[in-house]
């Protein structure tokens, strides 16, 4: 019973770590590639074009 509870905690901790990592990745890509604030857009302009993001 205890072992089962522990392994269940282990699995959900793993999934939480994976979900958090995916969220961080998505946030970075959205920030660097998509957010249209003028300062961000101008700074990231060339790299956005070169990586095929919709830019203007």
């Amino acid at each position, binding site marked *: 019973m205890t072992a089962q509870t522990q392994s269940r905690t282990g699995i959900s901790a793993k999934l939480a770590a994976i*979900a958090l990592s995916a969220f961080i990745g998505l946030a970075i*890509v959205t920030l660097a590639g998509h957010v249209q604030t003028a300062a961000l857009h101008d*700074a990231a302009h*060339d790299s956005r074009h070169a990586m*095929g993001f919709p830019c*203007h």
Partner: protein
Amino acid sequence: MFTRILVSALFAGFLTGLIAALLQLVFVQPVLLHAELYESGTLNHFGDGGGGAAAVPGVDLERDGLSVLFTTLTYTGYAFLLVAAMALAEDRGVRIAVRQGLVWGVAGFLAVQLAPALGAPPELPGSAAAEIGPRQIWWFGTVGATAAGLALIAFGRGWALRGVAALLLLAPHVIGAPHPDEFIGPAPPELASLFAARALGTGLAAWSLLGLLAAYFWQRESKRAEGMVRAA
């Protein structure tokens, strides 16, 4: 688990980003700068006297530095997503050797760069384009549907799932990307096609490297974690 993903993603993403930025500066940026001369009206490809004789600007430390920063940032973001997917797969019993990283990387390229490019090719400054909002929505939808479709083909069992995978891969292109009402961009089509091809080529190189490095660092961090458990 989280530390392993964090360390692997940071190393793989940062290294890949630096190399990708270098490739972009050498192969993609000159085409972009050339096109900007048409966008600004310095050059004109209609009629006489519009030749490509004007000098294309060279290295601009501030501008190119920002490009290096944002390319590195973007690939670090992709690395987090890729390593998270690898961790999920390995948790389900899929073994990821360094060689397999190549397949993961190419699959990432298909989802994030090639599939969106089929409807919205990497665009030169000065190209005519539809509203930005709907294009971004289409981009996210296409990347998500393609990634899900590829994952179903790789890990799904049975023909029903493969059918769903085919639908997911096709749907974004049947729906179609938003296009402008008319094409009036000042950039020459020759430069636009060269730009799209170069952007995709450097993308494929970078994603292949990202896959290999992500698998390498993920394996290395996993072994280190196992070693620590054994030592304890």
